[in-house]
């Protein structure tokens, strides 16, 4: 067991290092349009990561992530524009505000199990989208909020695409690293215990209602961070960004990458975000191909790309001695 964790962690480190090097080189090599695509992809990655915490670690499926993302974005916009606080404060308020909101909601919703919880989150998503569309004072209604000021700390203003890229990249890396701590912490382990068998976890003395609510709150915090970054990046918020379809997209991304590790979230997000850009000429048939692709992928490899890679690794690359029967 320990061996397996170690080997996965090693590959993670290598992959993360390679991606990091690549990330440093990217801004000088690509157009600002491509950078914008990457920036959006990184923000999407944070949301997909929130699905990973909830689904991959804790085994609960939520369709409200895009709504939570929206909450974070609108909190930032309001705090910066109406209260005039600094960017950092707005970011922190967004994260904490969204986390608190999801914690309270989670405490109510996790009285429902499995399917019921998922449906309640579909409801939450619908309610949030309705609120974003109609609550004129806070969200600007159908017109949305425009002219949100850029991210600034002291004298530094993130007003170019490259500087925004580095701000987002730094946040994403920080969050990913802290998630690694979560993965190996007692809290993270209790998430996984609940995922594997909730009744057994209860017998071990885990308060499953509280723990699941905390998992939901952490995923809410991630979405809140993503929302704040999105508000600073785009400068314009519209209810059309925060839809149920967006939430299903996150689920598809994490399933494509694989739910066993955050790396799956990276792979899934990158593939789908970049695919959407590369196949623009095929725009008319793009969605069709994409839907069929998802079905084929699920049939061929239900564990996602990472799951498939792991199977190959276990079978061919890993030393025979440690390859005991693998579930």
């Amino acid at each position, binding site marked *: 067991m320990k061996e397996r964790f170690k080997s996965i962690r090693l590959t993670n480190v290598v992959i993360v290092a390679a991606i990091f090097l690549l990330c440093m080189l990217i801004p000088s090599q690509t157009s600002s349009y491509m950078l914008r695509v990457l920036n959006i992809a990184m923000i999407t990655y944070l949301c997909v990561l929130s699905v990973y915490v909830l*689904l991959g670690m804790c085994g609960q499926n939520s369709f409200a992530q895009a709504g939570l993302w929206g909450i974070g974005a609108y909190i930032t916009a309001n705090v910066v524009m109406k209260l005039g606080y600094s960017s950092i404060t707005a970011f922190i308020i967004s994260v904490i505000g969204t986390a608190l909101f999801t914690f309270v909601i989670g405490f109510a919703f996790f009285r429902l199990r499995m399917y019921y919880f998922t449906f309640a989150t579909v409801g*939450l998503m619908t309610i949030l989208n309705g609120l974003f569309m*109609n609550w004129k004072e806070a969200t600007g209604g159908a017109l949305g909020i425009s002219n949100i000021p850029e991210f600034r700390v002291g004298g530094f203003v993130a007003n170019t695409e490259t500087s925004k890229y580095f701000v987002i990249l730094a946040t994403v890396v920080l969050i990913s690293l802290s998630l690694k701590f979560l993965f190996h912490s007692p809290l993270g382990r209790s998430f996984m215990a609940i995922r594997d*068998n909730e009744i057994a976890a209860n017998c071990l003395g885990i308060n499953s209602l509280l723990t699941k609510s905390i998992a939901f709150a952490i995923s809410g915090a991630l979405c809140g961070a993503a929302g704040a970054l999105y508000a600073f990046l785009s400068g314009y918020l519209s209810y059309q960004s925060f839809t*149920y379809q967006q939430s299903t997209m996150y689920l598809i991304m994490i*399933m494509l990458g694989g739910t066993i590790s955050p790396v799956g979230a990276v792979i899934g997000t990158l593939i789908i975000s970049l695919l959407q850009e590369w196949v623009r000429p095929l725009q008319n048939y793009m969605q069709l191909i994409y*839907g069929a692709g*998802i079905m084929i992928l699920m*049939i061929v490899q239900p564990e996602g790309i990472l799951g498939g890679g792991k199977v190959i690794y276990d079978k061919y690359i890993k030393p025979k001695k440690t390859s005991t029967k693998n579930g």
Partner: protein
Amino acid sequence: MNLQLLISGTSMGFVYGLIAMGMVLIFRSVGIMNFAQGEFLMFGGYICYMFNRIFNIPIGISLILSSLIMGVVGAIFMRTAYWPLRKAQSKAIIVSAMGASIVLKEGARIIWGSIPVSMDKVADGTAKVSTASIQWQYVAIIVIAAFLMALVYILLEKTFIGHIMQATAQDQYMASLIGIPVIVSIGLTFALSAMITGVGGGLLAPIFFLNNTMGMTSGAKAFAAIVIGGFGSVPGAIIGGLIVGLVEAFGGAYISTTYQLVLIYIVLVLVLMVRPQGIFGDRIQEKA
């Protein structure tokens, strides 16, 4: 005014009931929530439109033909999106159903275009009852939907095929041991589910225009109906559908049209808080 709302709400409720019933049939049969059910409604509507407006076939026959074709679509859906994944985790099946719903949605857009279309009504004109004017189409929807529901009930409870389908739903392995071809039985269930949902689309289209994104909202309302009525219960799905339709009609008239869907989901969350198993649901003991 109130009578008018009552009739339109009830008829919409019956349509949601049809979708919800389709979902419940699939859920009882294979234990999976079908996330593409709303797309069946949209696709059925479009096939009916194709027969009615492009081939100029009378609407009654178009409805029957479209429901037959939807049966085939349902069987294909089962064979491609569900059957290869029957032993995988349920989240993989949910994602593949989502993929299938994208395929149906985009397929409809590519075949029939994205401009909203309409077609003939089953029954034209309006009836005057004191001050209220009621479209005959609403009445026709109620009659046809109720007839279909009765038909499904008879099919499931009184016929041999229905018993085969119920036996498979209870225990697939046991059913295969006594010689029931499980794949055929599940395929029939999916086909039946797609058929009744598809007819719903054909009935709805003359009132609200058809477009390729209508599946999602109707699907979301049908979810609400199922959860309100009680998960896995067929009468619950119908009652839940009626509640959703009436809340939508009266809430839209007296509170706000923009918050219709929000209102439905607030009712849903309230029902879940008070009675988590829904109105007709049984409290199921969780298995270790």
